[in-house]
């Protein structure tokens, strides 16, 4: 059992994760390859207006009005905290890095464990917030299906089991096995569910954005 989930399953999960992301990324570029125009007539693109620093800041703050900061500041804070902690906690977790060091001879620097423990708590509180939102906020519930709860569960499960494992609540071995399995499930599902925003966020946010400013839209969306 242990040899299976720590050996072939783990390798398979990582292979599916990496190949899946490569596949989705290449599909993304393939689907948008057709050129819409060669030299798009973007007005004012040639003439850059020089702004003062003050004006730059004022414009920047004004553009925030179009984002979540303006429409839903609480959600904006919670989702930011969630993503920061979600990424930091597993990467700089002491136990992960000790294991990495044991098997590959390289381990990253780690946070003290009491600190990663707090990061995990933040992740779990944010998950609870997202769940409550989906359950009780009418406008969110209206667009929520079983799939959304399932994805939320996949994202939360490694952190919940990790938290239980760290505090050694319930049967430690069972919790550890669940922790490994749920993490593997998460890796496998990332490229093929909406957890894929792990990759696509950067494409949406920066590639598409730049297509309409610096690089003058040469792709078809």
């Amino acid at each position, binding site marked *: 059992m242990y040899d299976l989930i720590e050996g072939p399953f783990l390798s398979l999960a990582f292979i599916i994760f990496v190949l899946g992301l490569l596949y989705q990324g290449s599909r993304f570029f393939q689907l948008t390859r057709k050129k819409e125009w060669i030299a798009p007539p973007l007005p004012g693109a040639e003439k850059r207006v020089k702004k003062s620093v003050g004006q730059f800041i004022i414009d920047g703050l004004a553009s925030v009005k179009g984002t979540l900061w303006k429409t839903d500041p609480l959600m904006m804070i919670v989702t930011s905290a969630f993503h920061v902690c979600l990424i930091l906690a597993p990467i700089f977790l002491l136990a992960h890095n000790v294991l990495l060091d044991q098997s590959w001879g390289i381990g990253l620097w780690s946070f003290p*464990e009491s600190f990663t423990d707090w990061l995990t708590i933040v992740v779990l509180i944010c998950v609870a917030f997202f769940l409550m939102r989906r359950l009780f906020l009418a406008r969110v519930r209206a667009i929520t299906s079983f799939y959304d709860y399932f994805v939320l569960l996949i994202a939360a499960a490694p952190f919940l089991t990790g938290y239980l*494992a*760290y505090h*050694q609540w319930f049967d*430690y*071995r069972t919790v550890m096995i669940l922790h490994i399995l749920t993490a593997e499930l998460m890796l496998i599902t990332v490229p093929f569910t909406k957890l894929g925003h792990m990759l696509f966020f950067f494409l949406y946010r920066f590639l598409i954005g730049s297509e309409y400013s610096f690089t003058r839209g040469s792709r078809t969306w």
Partner: protein
Amino acid sequence: MKLDCIRVLMIIMLTTMIALTGSVLMAQQDKMILDSSNASQNKGRPAVTFFHNRHVEAGLDCKACHHLYQKGKNILDESQLVEGNPAIRCSQCHAAQLRLNVQQAFHSQCIGCHVTYQKEKKKTVPRYCGECHARK
């Protein structure tokens, strides 16, 4: 005369005890606390309670764990292995500033052996972090 008899008896008993248990080394305390929090950067795990006798009972040779390597050979003199001898402490060689510091040394030796042992003997031994670094 009576006192002598008791002395002789006691010596006989002691010799038998040593003979039966194999060596004086077996008579040492079973539970040891391995706490390297001073030797390496400790970031929060509880110290390990190590059961020496279980490892002897499992049929391990002293030199399966205790070692002093020279040119790839374990040249440790087993008569050195007496309780309280500072020269045989792991931290004597595995110093904090070394790559193979005391934490690394314990992890490699314990986990390494446990993983192979479980594979070969099909017996359940501690292998996940919290099974050795157990919270009370």
